[in-house]
């Protein structure tokens, strides 16, 4: 059973200046991702990688075509149903971490628990997630007191706390040094081994090489890079 099913997904941005043409970011994207797959999508800056990720995450509904994520037709559901999907089924990791500065690391990880029906046994799970990313001792620290790598790991812990089957990551190592980035990639490999479906957009080869399949987004369309990547241990 597929985790993601896209058929002819297209998205156009309005012209930036009067008189100029609208910008086609996605031009009929077709994509099938099986459950448990680790897919990396490469592409140049401005190629529409983040836009595709927002569409897949139900954050952007202004597109044409069909999009099914974990069996949910993203264009057919209500806003509240989409929020519930993001809450329980999808974890997001952003390039710029996007932690709430007023909350501690633990509270940031607990953020999904604030909404919907909350997260069962949230506090224990949040501490486990922090422990898993090696930040058990930083639970009470605020984002300002954490390094870039630590912030990203808190963001990953937040994405994992609700134990979603699908993880979407947007340039997760983009703001990290090589060593810290490697730690994050190792974590993704581990999650993949545990059966989680991962879709990561990146322009870094070291991240792509961890994936089982690499796709390239070029001129608004997805292309296979010609060779299926070998699953790395």
């Amino acid at each position: 059973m597929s985790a993601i099913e896209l058929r002819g997904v297209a998205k156009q941005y309005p012209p930036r200046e009067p008189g100029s043409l609208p910008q086609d970011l996605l031009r009929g994207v077709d994509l099938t991702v099986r459950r448990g797959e680790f897919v990396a999508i490469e592409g140049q800056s401005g190629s529409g990688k983040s836009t595709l990720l927002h569409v897949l995450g139900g954050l952007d509904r202004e597109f044409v075509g069909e999009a099914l994520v974990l069996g949910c037709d993203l264009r057919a559901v209500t806003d509240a149903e989409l929020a519930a999907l993001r809450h329980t089924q999808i974890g997001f990791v952003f390039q710029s971490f996007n932690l709430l500065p007023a909350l501690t690391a633990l509270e940031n990880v607990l953020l999904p628990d604030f909404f919907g029906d909350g997260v069962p046994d949230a506090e224990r799970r949040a501490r486990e997630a922090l422990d898993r990313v090696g930040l058990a001792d930083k639970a009470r620290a605020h984002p300002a007191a954490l390094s870039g790598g630590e912030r990203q790991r808190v963001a990953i812990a937040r994405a994992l706390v609700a134990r979603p089957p699908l993880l979407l990551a947007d340039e997760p190592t983009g703001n990290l040094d090589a060593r810290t980035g490697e730690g994050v990639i190792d974590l993704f490999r581990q999650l993949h081994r545990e059966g989680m479906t991962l879709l990561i957009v990146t322009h870094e080869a070291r991240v792509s090489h961890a994936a089982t399949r690499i796709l390239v987004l070029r001129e608004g369309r997805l292309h296979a890079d010609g060779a299926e990547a070998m699953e790395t241990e």
Partner: protein
Amino acid sequence: MKIGKLIRLARGNLVRELGALAVSAGGVALGTGCLVFFLALGAGLQGVVNQVFPVSTREVEVVVPQLAIGNLLGEQKIDDATVQKLRALRGVAAAYPKMQLRVPAVTRFSGPFFGRELRMGLEVVATGLMPELIGEDARMPFEDRGESQPVPVVVNRRLLELYNKVFAPQRNLPRLTDSMLVGFQIPLELGRSWVVSRSLPDSQETSMQVVGFSERATLAGVSMPLAAIRRINRKYGADADTYSSVLVRAQSADDVGEVAAGVRKLGLEIDDTEQRYAVQIGAAVELVTLALSLLAALITGLAAVNTMQAFYASVRERTREIGVLRAVGATRGDVAAVVLAEAAATGLAGGVLGVILARVAGALLDQIARTGLPDFPFKPSTFFTFHTGHLALGVGVALLAALLGAFLPARAAARLDPAKALTES
């Protein structure tokens, strides 16, 4: 979203934006503080009016019409038969006839008066009342004990207030209290007048004794037992059969209209002079309170606009965070609820602060009035009456102003496109 979690999430943002939100809360506090202050001032002044013009909603004073044709012909009068008719009217609980002293009388005092030497002569104006009307206000028996005994009198409290605040300071006389005067005897000469400088053939020297203070007593003079007035009037050949007025008490305030109609049918009228004064002054106080309250409402409205600007700025600054909230499962409603919870906290803080400010300002002005204003009749110990309802209203208005102010920013936050919000720099 559960309320406890909502508060936790809002609290974090409130702490972070304390400066900007303190300004908003300050504006709300100023508006609601003014509102509570003016309402309390209005209620306090209304209390003073009620003290000066005590008006019963169940009682009316029935008199003979001054311009009645029957009155000109000597037919319109209030006698025992009329009083019986009044008592028989539907809705009447009781009727208490009153009779003026229709014989000239004076008092002449020379001697020690509570530590001061006093010489004075006054014309005595007296009204006869039924003892039941005075009731427990009389601390000694209020009944006629015959010609050889002092005539018991009851004095209106307002008269004592006027003496203490106006007459005593001007004449350097001692200030008096109820307990000092009860039992005090003053000479009384019946059948004599200072005004016309003449005496009736069998004028009599007696005395009157203060037996109590009551709001029921006449304001113009002293009140004596009805039987004593009747006896004195009869002795000097004055009219001792007709009454000057009747206090009619209705069974309830709702019955007063029907009672008044019955009174008019009997050819009598209701003297509502004092009630009209109370109503007119009360209306003036209410009008001024209303105008000042509207001013306070305007200030609160401006505070709401200020709150709106502060929350728009806050939402703009937190656009990306709002995108994150949506990404982890917040609905549009959740986002709006977070913003409104922050506004509610701001409004509550402003409301409580406003109430405290109003109370402090009231206490300060009372202190200034106590020390800076001269002592005048009916000067209250406080000019403010802070009803619990006013305080609740103040906090409620503050809450409402903050929520109304934050409504549009909350809606804007809820409507943010999460994808665009996440890419906001």
